[in-house]
């Protein structure tokens, strides 16, 4: 029994010694390799920050022009006091994200809003359209049955109205007759902040039954249908622009932080590198001197 216990006790001790030796004996070469790789990473994050800063200024300019599209569409629903019909629970959620990562919590925020909604009761009547690969990646594992469409190639170039038209066309031709819904997106507030927000979607029936629709003149079913289609496209366009702008600003902050952290690491590693070099020199000197002393 003693024979069994002893190796059990000694092995961890040996492991600790090895570990400590590795820590202390970190060779100069190992440190310099590490230092070089961290420096390269810093270079990459820095240039990514520059790129997204340039993209951000453009996205913000575009967003200003796109704002009336979304606000106008939402105003109509508010003025007409459109409410989702209570007898039809079918809902559609559009998750506005993009294909690109490394930008903080932009995509997880949007996906989380939808995930919490899908975890609540009544989720079986909800269908989701994922715009961008990131939301698909997050939602696919648990809620893949709810996804009816995935849109890819978002975020490489600034979104255009054509993109919004394609997505709107996909929603209209998907064959899913939703009564109400939401476009979940990141609303851009300032360079350092964004917030998950949503735009309402309604079916044509809900709009026709709106109590205050009479404040608008000369509406017939055809005009309403056309307007609904156009407002869907313009709201998607607005949400895409808001999302792109928040994403770039968030990526800028994320990459700035990453460069800062890499800088700290570089400082620490340089210090260890110099200290180790000094130690190696001292040790060699001692060896030489003691060797010489032994000869005397």
């Amino acid at each position, binding site marked *: 029994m003693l024979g069994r216990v002893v190796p059990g006790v000694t092995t961890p001790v040996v492991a600790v010694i090895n570990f400590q030796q590795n820590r202390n004996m970190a060779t100069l070469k190992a440190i310099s390799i590490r230092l070089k790789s961290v420096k390269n990473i810093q270079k990459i994050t820095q240039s990514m920050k520059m790129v997204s800063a340039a993209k951000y200024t453009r996205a913000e300019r575009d967003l200003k022009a796109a704002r009336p599209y979304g606000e106008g569409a939402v105003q109509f629903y508010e003025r007409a006091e459109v409410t989702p019909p209570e007898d039809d629970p079918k809902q559609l959620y559009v998750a506005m994200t993009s294909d690109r990562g490394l930008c903080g919590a932009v995509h997880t925020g949007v996906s989380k809003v939808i995930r919490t909604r899908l975890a609540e009761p009544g989720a079986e009547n909800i269908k989701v359209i994922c715009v961008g690969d990131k939301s698909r990646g997050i939602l696919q594992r648990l809620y893949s049955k709810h*996804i009816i469409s*995935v849109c890819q190639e978002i975020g490489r170039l600034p979104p255009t109205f054509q993109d919004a038209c394609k997505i709107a066309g996909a929603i209209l031709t998907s064959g899913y007759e939703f009564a109400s819904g939401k476009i979940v997106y990141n609303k851009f507030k300032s360079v350092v902040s964004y917030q998950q927000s949503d735009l309402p979607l309604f079916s044509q029936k809900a709009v026709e039954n709106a109590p205050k629709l009479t404040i608008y003149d000369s509406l017939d079913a055809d005009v309403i249908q056309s307007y609904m289609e156009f407002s869907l496209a313009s709201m998607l366009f607005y949400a895409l622009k808001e999302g792109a702008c928040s994403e770039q600003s968030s990526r800028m902050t994320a990459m700035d932080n990453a460069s800062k952290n890499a800088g700290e690491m570089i400082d620490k590693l340089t210090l260890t590198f110099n200290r180790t070099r000094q130690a190696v020199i001292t040790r060699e000197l001692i060896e030489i001197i003691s060797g010489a002393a032994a000869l005397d």
Partner: protein
Amino acid sequence: MTAWRQAGLNYINYSNIAAKVLRRALKPELRTEALKRDESHVRITPWANGRPAHLQQADK
């Protein structure tokens, strides 16, 4: 019902065709800029039963 809706277009298609024609009618120096707004790279994959629809067809 309007003629374009009878032909199976919705308002988005209709207005896009109108926009495309208008862009082509612009003067050359303005046209190149305007044509950039006509591009779209989005790909849309329909999903059913938790998988992309085209993969399901491949399974069968």
